[in-house]
Each structure stands twice: as C-alpha cells, then as structure tokens.
C-alpha cells in the first residue's frame, strides 16, 4: 500500500519534473520568438557554444547577442519572479488555510511596489529590489497584524487585502508622479509588471535577495503541513504557531518583494498556480511549494511570450496576460469550494 511508506503521496514529484520540462520548452520558445525570430536549432547552437560545446555551424553573431544579452536575462528573471509569485501564493494559502490567499490580493505586492518605487530613487536596480523586499516584509507584517489569520472567511480576507492594496497603490502613484522619471519606473510597471528592463544585474540581485526567503519557505513545508490541521491542533502538537507565522510572512514579503522590485506586480500567478499543482500532485507542501515555484516560472514565461507577440513588435505589460487568465480563474475559485463539503 502506498500510504504506509509515503502517507502524503510525495512521490508525485514526477509532476515537478514534468513542469521543469515544460519550463525548459517555454524558455526555448521565449529565446527564439521576438522582433527577430531565431530558430530553436540556432538557439541550441548558441547555448551549446556558450557552455563550450561546438556543434553545427558558427551562429550569427547578432543572433548570439540577442539571445545572450537581451533574451536570456529577461527569461531567467521571469522564471525567478514567477517562481517567487508561485511559492509565496502556495505558502500563504497553506498558512491561512485559505484558497484565495495571494501576495498581491492581500496587499503585500502593493507594499512591495511602494518599497520598490522608493528604492528605485537610488537609481539602481539593487536599490529597487532591496526596497521591494523591505516594503514586502513590512506589508506582510501589517497584513498579519490586521488579523488576516483570524479571518478564514475568503471574502473578508480579500476585501481587507484589496483595501490595503488600493491605499498603498495610491502612495506608489504619488512617488512615481513626483519622482525623477529617468530613475523610477512608470506606474504601469508597478501595477502590471514588465520584464523588458531585465539585465544580468537584475538577475543576480533578485536571485540573492529572493533566495534567502525561498530557503525559509521551503524549510517551513512541514510546518505548513501541520497547520493544515488548523491552528488549534497545530499548537497542541507543540508548534509555535506565532513564530511560524512570523517567519513565513517575512519570507513571503522578502521573496515577492524582491520580485516586485525587479519586474513590478504581476498578478494572479500566486493564486492560480498552487491550485493546479495541488490538483496534480496532492497537498503535501514540500511538493506544492516546489511545484508552484516551477509552475510560477512557467506561467510567467508563457505570459511574457504572449506579452511580446500579441501586438508585436510592441510589448504589453505581462500582468495583462496573467490577469486575463487569472481573473476568470479567480471567479471560478470563489464560486466553487476546492473540496466538496459533505
């Protein structure tokens, strides 16, 4: 019987492997599609040569530059930012036992936007990302203090977050309109996200900053499993629920905050992806957190691909694409409970 040696069904890590393969496929598609189309074969040759394997003909040097200096950092930043959204959505849904928890809907994203906008006054991407992480952590603490954890009723939970988010977004607007436009990205970046400005510098700072928080969240997987029993029984099993909540909220704030500082707010990834992963792989948080990170990266890449081709050669903000998919999903989610009630 499967249940004895693997009660959570954690063997369904195969789902994560499949998502990784899809992610790799999406990455190749994103590398090849754009104002200049580069055939997948040539993309492979360029990548192979970069790691020292000379296969086929010498690739075109212009194509090489497009792939390695423009598209590659953009894709990797997109993967990390999407992973940040996916893993934080999964962590919040587990922490609050609430299917509609999402960092942006709860107002943590807008808090990160404000921090990121203020941080970008320094004129550096490092400042924007650090500011986003700090803003995200502060907003996460505010959400925790507002007693979101006490209210398991989905609608109230989201209304609180929407009010908080709207209020903070107004301040983001003030900062953007008052500040030097050459330093602070425009308001649509903060509200809808954009991967267009990503560089290798963005990738390094984002990965370092978000990495610490991701580590904390992955370490909390077992704690989140225990919290699935409800706060009261988790306490009875010896869990320090307040400390666990604090660590997870700070981790969520740092991870999504760094992502917002790098690419702005890209909505709905954190809401949609964990549900799909749970449906495919079960609810064990080790798999859900990891799968939501990979799935989040995948959804971001697909959305960015759409954002670049839908009105090519122009680009639309990537958040328009995720919202177009995520909005209807959200409506479906709040109509229908995830698990049928007896």
């Amino acid at each position, binding site marked *: 019987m499967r249940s004895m040696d693997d*009660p959570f069904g954690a063997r369904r890590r195969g789902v994560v492997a499949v998502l990784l393969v899809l992610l790799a496929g999406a990455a190749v598609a994103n590398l090849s599609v754009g104002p200049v189309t580069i055939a997948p074969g040539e993309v492979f040759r360029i990548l192979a040569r970069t790691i020292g394997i000379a296969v086929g003909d010498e690739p075109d040097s212009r194509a090489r530059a497009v792939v390695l200096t423009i598209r590659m950092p953009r894709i990797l930043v997109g993967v990390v930012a999407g992973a940040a959204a996916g893993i934080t959505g999964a962590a919040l849904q587990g922490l609050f036992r609430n299917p509609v928890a999402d960092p942006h809907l709860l107002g943590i994203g807008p808090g990160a936007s404000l921090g990121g906008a203020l941080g970008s006054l320094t004129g550096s991407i490092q400042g924007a990302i650090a500011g986003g992480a700090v803003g995200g952590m502060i907003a996460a603490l505010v959400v925790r203090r507002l007693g979101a954890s006490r209210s398991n009723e989905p609608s109230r939970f989201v209304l609180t977050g929407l009010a908080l988010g709207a209020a903070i977004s107004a301040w983001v607007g003030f900062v953007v309109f008052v500040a030097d436009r050459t330093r602070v990205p425009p308001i649509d970046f903060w509200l809808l996200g954009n991967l267009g400005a990503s560089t290798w510098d963005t990738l390094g700072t984002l990965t370092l900053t978000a990495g610490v928080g991701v580590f904390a969240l992955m370490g909390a997987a077992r704690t989140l499993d225990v919290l699935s029993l409800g706060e*009261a029984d988790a306490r009875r099993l010896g869990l320090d629920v307040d400390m666990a909540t604090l660590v997870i909220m700070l981790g969520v704030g740092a991870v999504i905050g760094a992502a917002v500082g790098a690419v702005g707010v890209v909505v709905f990834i954190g809401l949609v992806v964990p549900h799909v992963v749970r449906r495919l792989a079960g609810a064990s948080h080790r798999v859900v957190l990891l799968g939501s990170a990979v799935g989040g990266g995948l959804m971001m890449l697909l959305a960015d691909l759409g954002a670049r081709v839908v009105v090519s050669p122009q680009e639309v903000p990537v958040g328009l694409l995720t919202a177009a998919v995520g909005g209807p999903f959200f409506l479906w989610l709040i109509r229908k409970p995830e698990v049928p009630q007896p």
Partner: protein
Amino acid sequence: MTFQLAATGVSYRVGQTQILHQLDLDLVPGQLVAVVGPNGAGKTTLLHLLGGEMPPSTGSVTIDGTPIRDIAALELARLRALLAQDGPSDIPFPVAAVVSLGRTPQRRVEGNSASRDAAVVADTMEEMGISHIADRLFATLSSGERSLVSLARVLAQESPILLLDEPTGALDVAIEERTMDRIRSRSKDDRIVVSVLHDLNVAAKYADRSIVVSRGEIVADGAPADVLTSDLLTDVYRHPMRVVPHPFREGPLILVG
C-alpha cells in the same frame, strides 16, 4: 512510571460568566475517567484546562507537580494529547498523512525514526479500523470516519496523558463499543485517560471513574455504580431518570423517563 495530573482550586471565568468554580481533581494512570453532565456544564472547559489550552482564572493545573503553564509547548505535546471538537473538516491530506501528523512532537525524540513513525501510524490505523481508507482524502470522509481518523491521530502521538472530548459522538453503536474498548485498553497501558462522554450508559460500562459536572462544579466523583444514581441524575439533568441493575452484565443501566 507513575505520575499525576492535578487541578487545584481551578476556576474559569469568561467576562462575568463563571464557567467552572473551584474544582479540585487528582488523576492517576490506569483508569479510564469519564466526565459526564448536561450541555453547558463545563465539561469541555474542564478538559481544555487540564490540557493546558488556556490558563485557569484562579488555581493551577500541574503535571507531576509542575504547573502546566511552565511546560514548553513541544514538551507538553509529548506529555499530553487532546482530541477537541473544533478541528477543520477540509484537511486536504489522505487519512494516513493526517494520522502521521500526530507523530510531529515525537520526530526529534531520541530513539524515534521514520520507520518507527510509519509503524505506529500503521498500527494505530489498524487498531481504529481505518486501514482500508488510508488513501482516501480526509475531506471526503463521513463525520464518523473523520472522528475515527482524528482519534487515531491523537493516539499516534503516544502521549502518557490522553484527553478526549466526545471521541465516539458520531459513531454507530458497534464502532462506538469497539472504540471505547480501545480507549479503555490505553488506560490500562499506564496512561491517564480522561474522556468527556455524552452517553451515560457508555460511561457506566467503560469508565473506572465517573466525574459528574453540573453548573461548573463537580457534584459527584467515583465508581459509576456508586455515583450514577437515579436521584443524582434526575437532579443534574432535570429530567426523570432511573438507574437499575443491568439485566445481562455487571453494572448499572440508566433509563430515561
């Protein structure tokens, strides 16, 4: 190892409402102790105070002389398990996973291992008769099945003190009998077992000691045959009751008039 769970001068008040009033209680291993009484008498509050869920308004609860509030959460989880009635019904895990979460406080105990955890989980599910639903999702179970799974989770904690709030409330007669039998055998296993029970005849049959709680006070405490009397029950429940010798086994039979 003999140890003791004691309440001394324990009262509990919420605002102006006195829920429990000056209770003294001494509990030792080896007995199944039933707490009975009408709705709102304070049975669940008493059980939760004994489990250290909240501090009493006055008095203290001690385990082997140590005030329960001085015991760290994880240590307390190794000492006592509490089956409450407030758990969620939509836990998204299979039954075996829910039961295995009961092992959480044992995970870093010396001598424990993943294989021992798995063995305890398997044995406990077998004991509770739920092995056949091990792979079903908890959220899809009936309320009776859920209560068996929650009880199995609490038993898998392997704590020397077991506090159970109506463990058989949603069970049919046959399963209730079997479950009470298992709970009783736990008490013979050198554990302190206290259970709030709704059915007086179940208490009369299985308990070694019955504590009758009424309006926040302990009004009777002793062997069921001695304390569950017609006069006392009629008075406490404000409903005519009669206690007669059971026609085909030892012990009292409580008849509701």
